[in-house]
């Protein structure tokens, strides 16, 4: 009896393993059935993710806040004093303000780069069931988003659109180990390749044997043909460490991203960009000295907050101004 049961188990195992391998083969051969099933799952999950994100976003940030508690202790003390004056404000209003700040930052960057962008809200982060680093945004093909479009935050490049459904898109973050982007150093114009490593730092490898990297160098995207997948001139990060060993032909180093990938609330997908690179103008600086005119803005809702998703063509006027001022 036991032997018979064991044989049945082994037969069942073989059947199921062969079925699994069949699915894997179909997927690797690019059969649309398997790709489509994930797309259907994403479309089905999108409304749930959006609702849950609205309700539980503060809970989701709970662990992150604990993690960063030590580093922001001083800021917290100051914030507590300020908080006394804001007791009457609702938590929802604060959340909305945060989203507005991120949206404004993204539009500022898009305006300086003369990018046509569509703003989107992050509704989920990559599942712990996989090793990829992704976020899900609440805008899809209905908002003009296609695969291989650059995604930016207020401070710089965030990633690349990997999958799109009608109402959502999955963005592969620059920290993903399989992410690679061509970059150039703003100061020396040397070009290189930046690769994600699954952490907050990335590796940079110069392509030019004569080129040099210095700590503090700012990196911008080098751009691709027809601006896809990467538009030129988007700030990527800053060099934090340089490998001075002579074991490789070209120099390499570590880079820290300008964008805070752990705290993404609002991002923008670049729909189109000017062919000329905006060069160093987009590198984040503590106090920008340009006047920004945003000629179009997302449709306001009842709360007065621009709705992520409305396509925006912010026009930038990098005219030097005696006093920093912003005007919408």
């Amino acid at each position: 009896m036991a032997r018979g049961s064991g044989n049945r188990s082994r037969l069942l195992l073989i059947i199921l393993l062969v079925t699994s391998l069949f699915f894997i083969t179909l997927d690797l051969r690019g059969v649309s059935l398997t790709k489509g099933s994930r797309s259907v799952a994403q479309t089905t999950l999108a409304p749930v993710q959006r609702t849950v994100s609205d309700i539980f976003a503060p809970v989701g940030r709970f662990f992150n806040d604990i993690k960063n508690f030590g580093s922001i202790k001083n800021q917290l003390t100051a914030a507590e004093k300020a908080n006394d004056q804001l007791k009457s404000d609702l938590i929802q209003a604060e959340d909305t303000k945060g989203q507005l700040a991120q949206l404004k930052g993204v539009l500022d960057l898009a305006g300086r780069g003369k990018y046509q962008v569509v703003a989107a809200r992050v509704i989920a982060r990559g599942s712990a069931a996989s090793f990829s680093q992704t976020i899900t945004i609440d805008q899809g093909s209905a908002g003009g988003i296609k695969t291989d479009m650059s995604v930016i935050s207020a401070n710089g490049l965030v990633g690349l659109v990997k999958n799109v459904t009608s109402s959502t898109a999955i963005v592969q973050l620059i920290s993903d180990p399989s992410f690679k982007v061509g970059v150039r150093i703003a100061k020396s114009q040397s070009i290189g390749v930046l690769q994600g490593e699954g952490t907050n730092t990335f590796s940079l490898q110069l392509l030019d044997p004569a080129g040099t990297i210095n700590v503090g160098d700012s990196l911008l995207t080098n751009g691709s043909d027809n601006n896809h997948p990467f538009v030129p001139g988007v700030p990527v990060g800053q060099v934090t460490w340089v490998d001075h060993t002579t074991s490789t032909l070209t120099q390499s180093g570590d880079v820290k991203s300008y964008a805070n990938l752990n705290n993404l609330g609002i991002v923008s997908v670049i729909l189109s960009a000017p062919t000329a690179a905006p060069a160093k103008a987009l590198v984040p600086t503590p106090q920008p000295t340009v006047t920004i005119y945003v000629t179009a803005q997302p449709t306001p809702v009842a709360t007065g907050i621009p709705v992520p998703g409305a396509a925006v063509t912010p026009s930038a006027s990098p005219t030097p101004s005696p006093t920093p001022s912003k005007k919408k």
Partner: protein
Amino acid sequence: MSALRAGISLAFFFLLFGIQESAISLIHFPVAGFSLYLAVAIALIAFEDGNAAIITGFIAGLVLDLSPTSNGPFGQWALILTLVGYIFTSNRESIADLTSSPLTFVLFVTFGVSIALVTYILFGTLLGEHNGSLSRDFYIVLANAFWTLIITPIFLPALSRLRKLTLTSKERM
């Protein structure tokens, strides 16, 4: 395993998948992440005997393969969790009755989650996937094991009760 129970398992895994992808993925766990789906799936596999464990593993893997954020091919998780189901069912008797010892059960689930993740990395590497550096992967597996160890005892009693509700009178015996 009856067709009815297979259907119930499929529906349950779909529900769990929705919770994992929409709610759990929003939580920024310190020291990497936690997969509630994987922990519950391994626990359910551990509850089952013989063919039921293998079929439960296959169903759980197939649903997990639907994850839009997964970087592996469709079928990879089905293959891995089927294997885990087989390994569990062929070694269960040597570990004694897990349900009578909750601590052993939790350790068993934690071990199962770690094994599943390590197998996923190894299989992914064979298929040419980029899963990051070895140290980072080790860190993620370790962190997942840590959270599974902490969180599994919380949902285990409810999961055990829920499973008993789906058993037929014949299976209860």
